C-alpha cells in the first residue's frame, strides 16, 4: 500500500516536451493517462482485470452478468484466496512456502481426528496450533540454519505427506461437524443476498490480515525483511524472529484454509492440497506480489484469486476443459510477471 509516493508530482497537468525533466533513463515523459495508471495501487490491478473479465463473460453469455454468477465465482475464488493468504505472507518476507499443500491436508485431517477428543472448536484450535508449529519449524530451519526456503519447505511438504499417510485412516474421517459446515458451506443472508458463509468469513479474514500487514509494526517489518534483509539487520530488527513469524503465519493460514476446505467440500484426502502448490503461488503473483519479496498484499491476492476464478468460469462456460484452464493460468502468470517486471524496472 506504499505505492508511488516517491516521485514529486506536478498536478497542473502540463504536457511539456522533455526539457525540464532531466531524470536519467527517461527519454519520454509519461502522458496524463499513464501517470494516473502509475499512481494506482498495485492491488487494484487484479480487481480491475477481474471486472474486465467479468464483463467479457457477460458479452459472451449475458446470463453470466448476474449476481448469482458473481457469487459463484467469488466463492470458488475465496477458497483459493484463503489458501493463498499464507503464501502471501511467506512471499512478502522474501521466501516461498511450498509446504502449503500438505499443511492443508495435514490440518484438515488432524481437525477431523481431533474433534473426537476435543470437540469441534477444540479441534479447530488444535489443528491451527499444529499448523503453526509446522511454520515455526520451517522458519527456524530457514532463518537459523540458512537453508533455502524452497528446499526447506519442499522437505517439509514431503515429511508432512508421509505423516498424513502414516497417521490418518482417511476412509473413517468423513463426518463433518455442523459447526464447521455452518461457518463454510451453509448459505447465509448478507444484505439480502444468499451466499455461502465462507465468502464473508474470507472477506473478514482478508481485512484483518491486510490491516495487520499495513498498520502494525510487525506487518511492516515483514516487508522490510523481504526487501532488504541486510538493512533490517543493521537497523537492529530481529530478522530471524521476523522470518520465523512470517513462516508461522503462512502455515497457520494454510492450516486454517485446510479446515475451511474440508468444511466447504465435505471431503478430505491425503492429496487434497495438491492443486494449491502452484495455485497459491499463482494467485499471489497475479495479485501483484514480487517473488523476490518485499511486495504484496492480501487484497491483491484476493484479486489474483478472483482473476483465476473468473478464468475458470469462462473456460467452463466455453466448454474448453480444465486442461486449457491450466494453460490460460500459465499465460496469465507469464503476462503478469512480464508487466510487473517492466514497471519495476522503469
Amino acid at each position, binding site marked *: 500500500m506504499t505505492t508511488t509516493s516517491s516521485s514529486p508530482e506536478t498536478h497542473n497537468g502540463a504536457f511539456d516536451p522533455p526539457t525540464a525533466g532531466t531524470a536519467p533513463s527517461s527519454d519520454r515523459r509519461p502522458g496524463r493517462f499513464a501517470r494516473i495508471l502509475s499512481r494506482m495501487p498495485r492491488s487494484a490491478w487484479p480487481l480491475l482485470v477481474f471486472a474486465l473479465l467479468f464483463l467479457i463473460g457477460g458479452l459472451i453469455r449475458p446470463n453470466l452478468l448476474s449476481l448469482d454468477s458473481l457469487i459463484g465465482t467469488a466463492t470458488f475464488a475465496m477458497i483459493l484466496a484463503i489458501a493463498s493468504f499464507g503464501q502471501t505472507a511467506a512471499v512478502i518476507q522474501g521466501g*516461498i512456502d511450498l509446504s502449503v499443500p500438505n499443511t492443508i491436508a495435514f490440518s484438515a485431517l488432524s481437525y477431523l481426528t481431533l474433534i473426537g477428543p476435543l470437540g469441534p472448536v477444540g479441534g479447530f484450535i488444535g489443528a491451527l496450533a499444529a499448523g503453526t508449529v509446522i511454520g515455526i519449524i520451517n522458519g527456524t530451519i530457514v532463518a537459523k540454519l540458512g537453508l533455502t526456503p524452497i528446499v526447506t519447505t519442499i522437505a517439509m511438504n514431503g515429511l508432512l505427506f508421509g505423516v498424513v499417510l502414516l497417521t490418518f485412516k482417511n476412509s473413517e474421517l468423513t463426518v463433518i461437524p455442523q459447526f464447521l459446515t455452518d461457518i463454510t458451506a451453509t448459505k447465509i443472508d448478507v444484505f439480502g443476498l444468499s451466499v455461502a458463509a465462507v465468502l464473508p468469513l474470507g472477506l473478514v479474514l482478508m481485512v484483518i490480515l491486510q490491516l495487520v500487514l499495513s498498520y502494525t509494526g510487525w506487518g511492516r517489518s515483514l516487508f522490510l525483511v523481504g526487501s532488504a534483509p541486510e538493512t533490517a539487520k543493521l537497523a537492529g530488527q530481529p530478522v530471524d524472529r521476523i522470518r520465523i513469524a512470517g513462516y508461522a503465519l503462512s502455515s497457520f493460514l494454510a492450516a486454517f484454509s485446510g479446515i475451511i476446505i474440508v468444511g466447504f467440500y465435505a471431503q478430505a484426502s491425503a492429496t487434497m492440497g495438491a492443486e494449491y502448490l502452484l495455485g497459491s503461488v499463482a494467485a499471489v503473483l497475479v495479485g501483484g506480489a514480487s*517473488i523476490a519479496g518485499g511486495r504484496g498484499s492480501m487484497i491483491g491476492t484476493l484479486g489474483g484469486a478472483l482473476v483465476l476464478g473468473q478464468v475458470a468460469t469462462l473456460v467452463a462456460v466455453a466448454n474448453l476443459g480444465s486442461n486449457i484452464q491450466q494453460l490460460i493460468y500459465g499465460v496469465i502468470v507469464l503476462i503478469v510477471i512480464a508487466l510487473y517486471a517492466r514497471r519495476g524496472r522503469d
Partner: protein
Amino acid sequence: MTTATAPSDRSGISRLWNTTGITRLRREGAVAPITAFLAFFLVYVIINPGLLTRFQLQTAGNLVVPLALAALGQLIIVLVGGIDISIGAIMSLANVVFATAMVSLPVPLAILAGIAAGLACGLFNGYLVAYLRLPAIAVTLASAFIIGSISREVMDRPGGGITPEFYLATSGELLPYLPISIFWLAIIATGMWFVLQRTALGRHIYGVGSNIDSVAAAGLNAKRAQLAAFALSSVVVSLGAIMLAGSTITGDPRSGDSYLLSSIAAVALAGASFTGGRGSIIGTILAACTLGLVGSLLFFAGINSYWQYVISALIVISVVGIPVIWKRLYLALRKAHA
C-alpha cells in the same frame, strides 16, 4: 578462515588431495552427499543383500536413472542461480511426445522428437529469464502450467508405442550385473561434465551463477550462457523422460509430476548452492540414488513404505543442515579457545 597457522608440511598432503580431486569435491559440497550415499548403500546391502543380484540391480537402476537425469537438469539451472519449477512438466511433455512419435516414426527420429519438445521448453524458459530478465522461479511456474497442459493435450491418458525392444535398449542389461540404464546415465553425465568443465560455454555457465555482473563486465555473453544452461538442462531432462518411458514401456502425461519436488531435493542433498555457481555432478547423481532407493530399502526392511517421505525429508535436512551446524560449532569453539 585464513589465519597464521599455515604449517609448511601441508603442501604435500594438499597436493595429494588435489590430485585425487577431493578438494574439488569438497569445494563443490559433494563430500556430505557422497558420505551419505555410502552409508545408505551399506545399510541397504546389509538389510537386503539381494540388491547385488542381477535383477535387483536392474530394477534399482531403472528406478534411479530418470530421477538422476531430472536432478542433473535441475542442477544446471541451479548452477546459473535459478530454479526450474517446470522440470516435471518438461519431463511429461518429452515423455508423451516421444511415446507418441514411437507409434509412427523410427526410434532415432522419435528420440529426436522427444528431445526437440523438451528443448523448445528450455529455450522458451531460457529466453524469458535471460533476455527479458524475468525471475526464473516465476517464469518456470507459469511454464509449468503451460507445458503440463500441452502434454495432456498431446496424450490424455497413458499409452504410446513403446516397444519391448526399446525397453531392453534402455532398461535391460548391458552386461551381467551392469544395468544398461546406468551405462546410459554414465554417458549422459560424462557428456554433461565435458560441456560444463571442458568447454568455454560451460565455464561461462558456472561464472554466470557465481557473479553474472562480472561475467558481463568481462565482455562475455552472460545472456547466451544463461540461455544455453536452460537449453542443456532441458535436453538432459528430456533424456530422463525417454529413459522413464523406456523403463515403464508407456508414455504418461503425468509421469513427470513427481520429479519436480524430488529433483530439487536431490540437488539440495548434493550440496549445490542455490545462489548459483557451485554444485557437483557426481554428488547429484549419488544424491538421486539415495533418495530414489529409500522407498525400496524400507520395503525390504519390512517397514511401511509411507515412511520414505519422512525419511527422505530428514535425510535432506540433516545432510544439508549438519555441516552448517558443524561449522557454527567449530567457529564458536575456536572463538572460545582464542
